[in-house]
């Protein structure tokens, strides 16, 4: 069951709620295969995509999800919004509220921005990524993808590789995977592993081969190219040498036989992921994108109080 007004993070969700969202998403996947991919479920509802940070896939995914459900979707991007005129997020929230939207989907570069937006708001808020904090819909689509391919998440060995420190995807994935009973290892250079992260119940491994040995799922994270100037690692070249996943390294590390590779995108080919890995049959990068649509349809539907029918 899912009775929440907002989706701000995975951390606050119960296991049952996560499973219920995934079940709902699975049923929406059928809609995606229809010749006419539109159902009238959310006719007359307004969804505003407030993206305060560049994004393609998440924004488009939310937009298409809304449109398939017949909601009216509006996109606000940083360059065209009044936020560039110095309007505060709080004031923008009040302005938008006066137009009676049903949901605001927010992407923001700063942790906690969706929480600020949701304070005293009449509309619902979905967090589409807030700084390095959470990206709950990404975690849900990741969980859906894993569940589809593995049947069961409980007991799986999952390695998350890369820049954990700055990654909202990693945080949401960690929370979700642990709630559903997976074992999580984090792999990356010590500079990109947040201190105290073991307290969540994950293990940390700095060597890639060690880290992915015996894994059922490998989730790679995008390495943000601008980090190399901030003393986190010497160069992209060296990062790629140590942590870039190639078929070679994969073979040596001997993960589980039916290992799957995931990546939230956008990928840096040849940096954190070798093209041969990205395009391999066990790479689920594009399945993730499709599942993203299903998860977002499910969430819009559930949050707008879709009836059980």
């Amino acid at each position, binding site marked *: 069951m899912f009775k929440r007004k907002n989706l701000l993070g995975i951390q606050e969700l119960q296991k049952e709620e996560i499973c219920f969202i995934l079940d709902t998403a699975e049923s929406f996947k059928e809609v995606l295969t229809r010749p006419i991919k539109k159902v009238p479920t959310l006719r007359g509802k307004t969804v505003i995509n407030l993206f305060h940070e560049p994004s393609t896939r998440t924004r488009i995914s939310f937009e298409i999800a809304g449109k398939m459900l017949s909601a009216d979707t509006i996109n606000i991007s940083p360059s065209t919004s009044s936020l560039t005129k110095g309007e*505060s997020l709080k004031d923008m929230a009040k302005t938008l509220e006066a137009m009676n939207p049903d949901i605001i989907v927010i992407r923001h570069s700063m*942790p906690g921005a969706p929480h600020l937006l949701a304070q005293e708001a009449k509309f619902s808020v979905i967090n589409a990524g807030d700084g390095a904090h959470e990206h709950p819909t990404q975690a849900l689509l990741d969980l859906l993808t894993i569940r589809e391919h593995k049947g069961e998440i409980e007991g799986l060995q999952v390695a998350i590789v890369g820049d954990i420190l700055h990654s909202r995807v990693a945080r949401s994935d960690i929370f979700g995977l642990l709630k559903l009973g997976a074992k999580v290892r984090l792999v990356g250079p010590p500079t990109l592993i947040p201190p105290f992260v073991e*307290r969540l119940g994950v293990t940390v491994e700095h060597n890639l081969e060690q880290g992915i040995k015996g894994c059922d799922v490998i989730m790679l994270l995008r390495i943000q190219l601008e980090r190399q100037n901030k003393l986190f690692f010497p160069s992209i070249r060296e990062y790629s040498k140590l942590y870039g996943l190639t078929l070679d390294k994969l073979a040596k590390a001997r993960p589980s036989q039916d290992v799957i590779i995931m990546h939230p995108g956008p990928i840096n080919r040849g940096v954190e992921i070798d093209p041969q890995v990205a395009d391999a049959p066990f790479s689920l990068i594009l399945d993730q994108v499709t599942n993203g649509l299903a998860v977002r349809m499910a969430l819009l539907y559930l949050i707008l109080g879709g009836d059980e029918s």
Partner: protein
Amino acid sequence: MKTVIQGGRIIDPANGVDGVYDLLIEDGKITGMEQSLPVIDDARVIDAQGKLLTPGLVDMHVHLREPGREDKETIETGCAAAAAGGVTSLACMPNTVPVNDNKSVTEFILHRAREINLVNVYPIGAISKGLKGEELSEMAELCEAGVCAYSDDGRPVMNSLLMRRALEYVRLFGLPLISHCEDLNLCADGVVNEGYVSMVTGLRGIPCAAEEVMVSRDILLARMTRSPVHIAHVSTAGSVALIRQAKREGIPVTAEATPHHFSLTEELVLSFNTNTKVNPPLRSQSDKEALIEGLSDGTIDVIASDHAPHTLAEKEQEYDLAPFGMVGLETLLSVSLTNLYHSKKLNLPTLVAKMTSHPARILKIPGGTLSLGCPADICIIDLEKNFTVDASRFYSKGRNTSFHGQELTGAPIMTLRAGKIVFPQEPHKGPQGETFATTTSEHGQL
């Protein structure tokens, strides 16, 4: 004009006094302290039975914001907040606009404070011009104009050579240097403590080491120059240990802690409430306990508020964008009494000393004592008063506090400065325009 304050328990740490006495005030000065003063006909009588009398509190770390940011606080509202908090002397930090790195600003602050005439205001001058950390401000001129100390508070003096020179140069005046210990490189634009909470929230962390390396540096420089250094707002267990060791070695270092650092922890940040955003950040439970240990064993000499008012609009922003700081003048005493005295961590004389005689001694300012002949700066306290903090009723313009809604025990109920009641501010005035309360008036019963 004579006043007798009758029957209160008087704690005056500077003179080792702790007992029930009558206190006589004549012409704004303390002129008598006896177990029972004879009745004086023309004296105003304040009945303080069952109450605690201490020297007026000395808060050595306050941001008054004026000149420049009168939207956050003015000298007038800041002084009123001080009086309401039992504070009769405050030292105000130089990070105003313009910066108090020159005589005009110092004189302006002193002039306004005299006009307002509520509490004693002691301006602190900047160590470096414009707080830029590049070259020394004109310290002699600042001294002449009346600053009580030097600090770049709000910003560290990152250049160790400049810090060394400042420590050496202030020996000309015998005024203390107050250091804001924060290594900006290690801090790396952090906004919260680096720890479990920063990891979970994705907010950038400020490691304890960002403070501790600078505390170490300043201790080493104090040892080298033999000039005293005062460490502002100590927040970590590591800093406490470093200062403890330095004191053992006889290095001239003193330190202060704020009520929010010894009462609150980083857990509060999980709400993303920007009132929890302070610099240094709220730390962990073990840091908080180490601060209390440091207060109790004398490592930390002073409790100061680091009163840092901001506007609601500034605080109602994304956590990253909201300014650092929490108001504290009006909760300084109550939070300290609740979390140190009532929780049996500190006895009253020790606690009172950290808000009176110790800061006065460090700043070498008058006040902080009830010695005969001294100005009658007095705080009368109801130790058992239970109340809920309501920031909307503050005299300060700042409402930014994480103590809003908290239940506290113990509060200042009357503040006298030079014998005059400055809190509560009178609902009606006496014949000479002075405020008064007598046993016969409705305000006399404290």
